[in-house]
């Protein structure tokens, strides 16, 4: 049941981000709903499973991304390790609140890594790379805003669903 819910969550996040993400983009940065949901789900699974999901989700996002194929896969693999490091740092790693904070930190890293890895991969492949450093400021600000909004939303939804299923 847990896995079915997780897959539904991920599929829903992917659908919403691709269908309407561009319309609610902040400083031209669309809400990283799929990435944030994945980081949230990473929290309670082991490293090997995390890597499996990272590759699967990465290939999915790479198929609809502007960047060179493999960029998202690489970023999700890094985030799988990042979650492991974060879980080691926090003293109450199992707490729901800690999970939300971890997701927020992962979201900030995720948004900024997209730009960094995207540019790097494009440069390596000889594609035109418009380096516009001032834009990174916008991206960073947007990542902060999304890092507050999205994990709050995901944590709230997951908590509400958890309560609902307990009652059922």
């Amino acid at each position, binding site marked *: 049941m847990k896995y079915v819910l997780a897959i539904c969550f991920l599929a829903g996040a992917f*659908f919403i981000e*691709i*269908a*309407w*993400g*561009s319309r609610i*983009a902040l*400083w*031209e*940065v*669309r809400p990283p709903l799929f990435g944030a949901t994945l980081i949230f789900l990473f929290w309670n699974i082991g*490293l090997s499973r995390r*890597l499996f999901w990272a590759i699967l989700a990465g*290939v*999915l996002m*790479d*198929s*609809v*991304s*502007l*960047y*060179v*194929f*493999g*960029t998202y*896969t*690489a970023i999700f*693999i*890094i985030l799988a*390790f990042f979650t*492991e490091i974060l879980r080691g740092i926090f003293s109450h790693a199992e707490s729901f609140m800690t999970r939300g904070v971890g997701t927020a930190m992962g979201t900030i890293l995720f948004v900024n890594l*997209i*730009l960094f*890895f*995207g540019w*790097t*991969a494009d440069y*390596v*492949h000889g*594609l*035109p790379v*418009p*380096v*516009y450093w001032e*834009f990174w400021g*916008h*991206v960073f600000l947007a990542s902060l805003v999304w890092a507050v909004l999205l994990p709050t939303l995901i944590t709230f939804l997951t908590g509400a669903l958890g309560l609902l299923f307990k009652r059922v």
Partner: protein
Amino acid sequence: MAWRGKSTLFLVIALLLGLLIFFNDSAILRRVQTMSLAAIKPLIGIINQVRRISSRETLTGTEADSLIRENQRLKTENVEVKKLQAENEALKKVFSFRQDSGLTLKGARVLLHGREAGREFLLLDAGRNDGISQGDLVIDENRVFIGTVREAGDISAKVVVASSFGESIEVELLPSRLRVLAKGLGSHAFLLELIPADEIIRRGDAVLLASSKGRYPFVIGEIVQEKPPSASAFYEVRAIHIARPEFLNQVFVMHPAP
């Protein structure tokens, strides 16, 4: 897992990442890309349908698409009138464009419109197998310039919209016939740079793609704001991109690029 084991695994993964990003033109990864895109094509189709239905409801009503196309057509016609006024011969060649130029126009279906880190793009369902390659120019049915092919896969191609943040193209202004650099600002806007103060620039002037041979007048947009120079020796001019890539179902790829 011990930290030593984790470090080894991290190194192996880092190597894999390097291979993935830096050597991803290999046949295996191209195959994975093709297969994954083929697998999610139906999902993209559903997303597009949902997006189109919702955009009709929220944006401009049920006739949004036709109004936008009508608007584009009128602006294109306006450009043509201006060109005639300037006694420019190039417009006459537009009608016999295909015969004159020797260029081939390849139709491609738009799979997806998206935005990523300031850049707007289209995912097309035609790629290298259809003769599309990096750098090809993309126009819509009204000869409005959309952008250039950034990456061509076997069965798909990614097109960056010209007005995306950080993109630059050489454009020609009408009626002044001045050639300048247009920098994409995102949100369908351009900043036109280094226009000398002694030029006559007016709001509504047409912005065309400056091709190497100067005879394919593809419309890009029009000037919406011109700030006469005060202390500077140059104008500060902004233009809008009249293309609406978010509503396109089909585009035409020019190969080879003029």
